[in-house]
């Protein structure tokens, strides 16, 4: 009996030690606009901006990974979880939580993990194959690329490029210059104001329900997704909508779309201080008033 108890106690100690070894907490000094590269292929990355000239990383290394690495100088730091041969199937998910100076330039790469960012005002370059990417705040530049993961931005961004094959892309907030493309996922933009946007899908739906800046240029294109545009009352863009084989439902004015073959054409000038173009092969197009209160932005 004593021997059994001893074995249990030993096992408990070993488990505890293994667990303790897999946890990490590291800090390095970093310039306010320092450059950071983060790799966590098989687990979540949580990234926070803070008003300190340092970077802190905490988390836990999943079983099967070689361990946590972190190095660099005041101008740049690289950190992440090392997986043998980068084979994500050989390792359990690791968690990685990182605090960086708000103005940092950060690049995060994952394969199966989600990426969650808040409070970073610098430039972000985020990529995950199947994980979701969520950004909250006002990054200056944001580049996101996923294969199947969804992308969400809540806040405002000066420059945004988001691309996915099968994931949905959702932007809630303003953007100076926005390009979002998904093959089969939906692309949704709400809030605003938006100054320049190009939204493209093959089969995914497109929803644009945002206020637009004066002089805005908006270009929406899809093959077979439904396109729904809800403009704030008082918006005065020029609207051109064309479909090849689908209806256009215009609720902005009494004007009906012209029939052209199997498709429709509609040209409206509501004032002309912005330009909205919609192209669709066979996805229905709906234009309506609605959306958030109009917030005109001087150019």
């Amino acid at each position, binding site marked *: 009996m004593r021997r059994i108890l001893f074995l249990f106690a030993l096992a408990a100690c070993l488990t505890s030690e293994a667990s303790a070894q897999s946890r990490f907490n590291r800090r390095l000094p970093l310039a306010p606009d320092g450059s950071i590269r983060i790799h966590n292929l098989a687990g979540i990355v949580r990234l926070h901006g803070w008003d300190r000239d340092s970077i802190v990383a905490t988390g836990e290394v999943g079983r099967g990974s070689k361990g946590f690495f972190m190095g660099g100088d005041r101008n740049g730091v690289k950190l992440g979880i090392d997986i043998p041969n980068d084979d994500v*199937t050989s390792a359990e998910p690791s968690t990685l939580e990182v605090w960086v100076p708000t103005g940092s330039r950060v690049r995060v790469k994952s394969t199966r993990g989600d990426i969650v960012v808040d409070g970073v005002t610098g430039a972000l370059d985020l990529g995950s194959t199947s994980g979701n990417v969520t950004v909250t705040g006002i990054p200056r530049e944001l580049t996101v690329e996923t294969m199947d993961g969804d992308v969400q931005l809540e806040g405002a961004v000066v420059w945004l490029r988001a691309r996915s094959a099968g994931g949905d892309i959702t932007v809630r907030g303003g953007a100076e210059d926005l390009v979002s493309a998904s093959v089969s996922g939906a692309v949704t933009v709400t809030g605003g104001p938006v100054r320049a946007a190009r939204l493209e899908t093959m089969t995914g739906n497109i929803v644009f329900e945002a206020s637009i800046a004066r002089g805005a240029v908006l270009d929406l294109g899809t093959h077979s997704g439904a396109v729904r545009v809800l403009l704030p009352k008082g918006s005065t863009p020029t609207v051109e909508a064309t479909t090849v084989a689908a209806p256009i439902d215009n609720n902005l004015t009494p004007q009906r779309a012209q029939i052209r073959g199997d498709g429709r054409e509609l040209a409206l000038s509501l004032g002309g201080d912005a330009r909205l173009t919609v192209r669709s*092969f066979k996805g229905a197009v709906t234009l309506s008033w609605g959306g958030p209160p109009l917030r005109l932005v001087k150019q």
Partner: protein
Amino acid sequence: MTHHLDDQTLSDLLDDGLDAPARSGAEGHLAACDDCFSRLQRMRALVGHAGSLPHMLPAPAGEWQAIRARLTTGGTRVIAPWWTRRGALLAAGLALVIASSAITAVVVGRAPVGSEQTAASPAATGPLTPRLAALEHEYTTVTRDLERQLAERKHALAPETVAAVERSLRTIEGAIAEAREALARDPGSETLARLLVAGHDQKVELLRHATRLATQS
């Protein structure tokens, strides 16, 4: 058409680096100018091609010694390395594309004489305007290169990633085929032309993304 868009403007347009009025002006010009449109598409195809290249290439044998020798001669003015300059990058990439394709025929605005046409090639499914046909040829060249690279490295991708890529490719190819068929019936449709180009763009971007993932794995 006297005031053509300069390379920098086209390059900025490609990088989404123009502000809204400048972009609008450039797009207006492109709608009316075949020369500039063709140059833009060549750049676009080039960037897609260059983006798929490995990040690092081994230096030729003896090159490092030569560089060291030049550095140790002293008094050399420090300038940005040539490979960091956009023009040089474009030129290098263009050289690669020219070397691997029949792009010179596109430059003069007609389909390449005697170019190989397979059953699956765009020209086999219907007539397009010369400009669009040339453009499609460029896309096809870039796409084939990317597909070849991806096929070589596909084993490095997770099965679910390969499945996602193939699923999306089928979706895009279906859309391209439908747009081409419709263009055969209505060759003058700008909407169809733009949708066709958008489909090719998405295909190139998807293949580029997948190839990069496979290279990094």
